[in-house]
């Protein structure tokens, strides 16, 4: 693919879309010096600017997203929040638009971006027709069901790492935070503080995430019923399990199985 225009041509655009970069391969790209004032100028001219997936890192360097709602690929959302603390990040959202600044989540959310722009400049009928061609549900607003929990472990706190290992192997038991703290030789209060500092999560939220992640695997790859899975992952009450599952994934266990079962 070859470029068919120069940066100057952006001045004629009604919508500017910034392509994402492949994260993991390298650090996010620095916006070139000429680009930042150009994007700021175009934003002032009411030009819509869309950052596709990881391109939110480039748009955020202009400062335009400060105090604005944005989203990005869920796999880099924590890094984004740390790098741009003034942006109001909604990592669960597939697409956000705030003051003409559009951001999208991961991969296929680009189709949602296309549909969003088509609706803005076209019509709802056109969106319906295109969504059928793209095989994309235009009503889907969350990337949460697709998120795979990732746990921070390179923090260098051995006691917290030990607690994490214990939770990951004993999640099916009745675990209390006091018991985990005692096991690693810390007071409950001290443990909670150090755990949050090391992992960015509270111990109880961490434990819930482990249990829900295991439950997702059981729903995807087994025919066990919801009550069985409830007990397998360490909950006594399926009502509590269902509520937590919905809160973390935005789907009920049954909806999740219907969508992701591999059987």
């Amino acid at each position, binding site marked *: *693919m070859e470029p068919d225009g120069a940066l100057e041509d952006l001045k*004629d655009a009604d919508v500017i879309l910034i392509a994402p970069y492949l994260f993991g391969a390298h650090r996010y790209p620095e916006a070139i010096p000429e680009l930042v004032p150009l994007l700021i100028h175009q934003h002032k001219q009411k030009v819509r600017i869309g950052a596709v*997936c990881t391109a939110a890192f480039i748009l955020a360097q202009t400062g335009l997203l400060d105090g604005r709602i944005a989203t990005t690929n869920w796999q880099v959302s924590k890094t984004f929040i740390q790098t741009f603390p003034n942006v109001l990040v909604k990592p669960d959202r597939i697409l956000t638009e705030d003051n003409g600044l559009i951001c999208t989540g991961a991969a296929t959310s680009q189709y949602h971006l296309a549909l969003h722009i088509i609706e803005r*400049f076209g019509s709802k009928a*056109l969106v319906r027709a*295109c969504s059928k061609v793209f095989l994309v549900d235009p009503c889907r607003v969350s990337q949460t069901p697709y998120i795979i929990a990732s746990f921070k472990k390179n923090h260098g706190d051995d006691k917290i790492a030990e607690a994490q290992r214990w939770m990951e192997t004993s999640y099916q038991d009745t675990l209390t935070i006091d018991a985990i703290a005692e096991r690693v030789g810390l007071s409950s209060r001290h443990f909670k503080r150090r755990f949050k500092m090391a992992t960015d999560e509270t111990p109880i939220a961490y434990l819930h995430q482990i249990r829900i992640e295991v439950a997702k695997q059981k729903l995807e790859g087994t025919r066990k019923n919801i009550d069985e899975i409830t007990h397998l992952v360490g909950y006594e009450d399926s009502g509590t399990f269902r509520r937590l599952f919905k809160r973390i994934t935005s789907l009920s266990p049954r909806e999740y199985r219907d969508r992701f079962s591999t059987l």
Partner: protein
Amino acid sequence: MVNVAMLAYDGCLFSSVELLADAFSISNLWHIKLKRERKTLYYQ
């Protein structure tokens, strides 16, 4: 006519640029079909 500019650069995912270009091309075709007019909605 709406002018959509796509900003690509070294190291970007070109599949994303292609996907969006295809999406707007499809939208153009359906716009003509639905409105029964020859003028396309987007300029790329």
